[in-house]
């Protein structure tokens, strides 16, 4: 998530489904098929797929010998786990106390209005952008903070946030 250089074994999400499935099997093996490692397993699987597909969760349940309802219960408990695909570019706006008192809400409203998304439907239809709030990234000295993919932007304004979105959208159409 942070711009510091990632270590050697940076994994680039592979595109082929069979490669991804292979990765799932590897993840399970790495965690010795232990049910107590469910959370790190789900985190690693989500890295691969960008969300947690139902079939994959069923496969994890079968492999770990735990009921699928339990896997579902864990996946829906923690905010990090996404059960629907996220956009290619994830915009995380901090709404922690420090950012909130420095007026993060107008930024959120501006982004949501611009991209025509909402709390219930945070991802654009073309799966390009997801707008979500986080409860504190620990960069409070730079409030209000917006993280776009891995980039942390501090002291953001609604206008600056929209400009960032425009820039990304322009790059996407150019490709």
């Amino acid at each position, binding site marked *: 998530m942070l711009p510091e250089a990632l270590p050697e074994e940076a994994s680039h999400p592979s595109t082929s*489904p*069979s490669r991804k*499935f*292979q990765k799932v*099997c590897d993840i399970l093996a790495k965690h010795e098929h232990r049910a107590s490692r469910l959370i790190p397993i789900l985190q690693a699987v989500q890295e691969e797929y960008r969300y947690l*597909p*139902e*079939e*994959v*969760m*069923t*496969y994890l*349940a*079968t*492999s770990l*010998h*735990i*009921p*699928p*309802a*339990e*896997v*579902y*219960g864990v996946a*829906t*408990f*923690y905010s990090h786990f996404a059960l629907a695909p996220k956009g290619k570019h994830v915009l995380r706006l901090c709404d922690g106390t420090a950012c909130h008192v420095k007026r993060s809400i107008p930024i959120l409203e501006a982004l949501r209005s611009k991209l025509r998304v909402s709390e219930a439907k945070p991802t654009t239809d073309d799966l390009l952008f997801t707008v979500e709030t986080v409860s504190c990234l620990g960069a409070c000295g730079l409030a209000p903070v917006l993280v776009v993919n891995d980039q942390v932007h501090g002291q953001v304004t609604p206008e600056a946030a929209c400009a960032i979105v425009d820039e990304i959208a322009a790059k996407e159409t150019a490709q």
Partner: protein
Amino acid sequence: MSAEAVVEINGRKVPIEGERNVLEVIRKANIDLPTFCYHSQLSAYGACRLCLVDIEGRGIVSSCSLSPEPGAKIRTHTPELREMRRMTLELLLANHEMNCPTCPKSADCQLQELARRLGVNTVRFKRTHAPKPVDTSSPFLLRDPGKCVLCGDCVRMCKEVQGIGAIDFAFRGAAVSVVPAFGKNLDQVECVGCGQCASVCPTAALTVKSDVAKVYAALADKNAEVVAQIAPAVRVALGEAYGLPAGTVATGQIVAALKALGFARVYDTAYSADLTVLEETHEFLGRKTKNEKLPHLTSCCPAWVRFVEQYYPKWIKHLSSCKSPQQMLGSVIKAEGAPDGKHLVVVSVMPCTAKKGEAGLDKFRSGDCQDVDVVLTTQELVRMIDEGGLRFDQLEPDSLDSPFGLKTGAGLLFGASGGVSEAVLRQAAEELGAARDGLAAFQSVRGDQGVREVAISVGGNPLKLAVVSGLANAKALLARVESGAVEYDLIEVMACPGGCVNGAGNPVRKNKDTIAARAKGLYHADKMLDLHRSSENHEVKTYYERVLGDVGGKKAHALLHTTYQSRARIDGAALKLVEGSQPAALAVTVCVGTSCHVRGAQTLLRKLITQVETAGIADTVDIQASFCHEACDQGPTVVVGGTTLHRTTADQAFAAVLAALQTKAAPDDRVLHG
């Protein structure tokens, strides 16, 4: 601190006598502290916050989770605690679908009762949650999340006592809900239908699915001859709804009620239980002689059967091929036929929710109708009796009809855990030439522990039996058998702890004493009958002579026996792994369900994909990893086009793929064994 093991409750000294928690001590002192989530059979949860007490020096804590400490000064009903309890109930009521008059749990609902008991006469809070849809998909249960108080008893029951975990909490905070996996319907997941979740549910969030409308429709049909069969466990429990003590045998009144409602004839499932005993003992002794398919597993509990089909495919061949008494009697009655012009409708009255699913299985269909058309639980019959305006406790008892109304005490025993085993032992004793009056010895299978081991000698033959109730216990026992730690000749499993008397269809306001009393009622009834051995049932003997021929013979097999199959645990979408770009790509599916997984399906899949990609044919095939083709003991299973390969390897599967791609002819449905 006092050296005596004593606590002070509301100023009164109460001794600690090995209770697990403060709540039990308080209840022993005759103060019925209210709770939702506390259940003596389940782990302490601490969520409902109703059992809060004020302990000097400690403050306000939940009494269900605290071990009793000598010298503790406990107050249970301070003004503050009373206000807190009321507020807790108001918070629950604010978002509860309050339609008490039309609710199936009305007058039996703990939320309603507590609101009354605690003097809640207003709800000061607004509704904040959106209404949730009702799940009517399951044949066994009705799920209404709007009535759920999130006590978690159902979750813990399904996981801890039944070892399944088909439902669990999902989401967080105010959005928490108890759901099957992925929010699917109950009939799409591993639920075996035991209904124990409903039996512990304090509200109407989980109730028995009602089939009363179907019965009324049949009774109103002039062309239908509606007959009933009553299970043993029903007669010792139904009376409780009318103030009769648990264990009172109310058969006569139940028959009278059914006749008054319009049933043409009323039979006794204990009759076919006798049939079951004869068939199953013959089968069991046969296996014992040939030393095959041991341990023998009983098969009269449909939840247990489903459990085996889903989780233990290797054990399917150990199940007795006998149908359950309910199904046997259904087949027998239908085979007899109906009086001219009419069609028969068989309604069974059961203590059990799983029986609803069993009756609806395709394999129990002959012609255009099921052998058992409708299953009514005890609770539903009570509803019908009430609606019919019948004063149950004042009804003149009536007798069961011939020929299927006669039973021996052995047949009655089926309602209690250990009953099937005891009945089989009595019959086995006869067939093995043991002494005629040694019946008392077989009572060693009785008891209330969830797992009982019995080593017994029958006519000089040593037999080892295990009697289990509760599916988590069954799981543990099978693990020990598989590991070789123990060995048995026969294992009886009932899904409901204590056996059918504790079925989810019976009245659910009960405790351990109620269950024990119901079982005792059956044992008493057995004692009071003249016949105790199934072979003494002369109506059954006549039926063999007239229709079936030999015990275990061909005709008996056709009518009274059945087969089993592996079942998938969850309706799940497959994982698409290789997507062929060509329009008519060959569909290849590899099963990665647990059994196949254990047999190396994952490795097979990996190898197959590599082979396909290396050969450069990836764009002509679609490879998916799917869950359960219900051929679990023949895995790994791979489907190539229309051909299913069992016990196959990656190389064989790959060869099949190549062959299928070459032959553009229509694939034929063949099953190939590796």
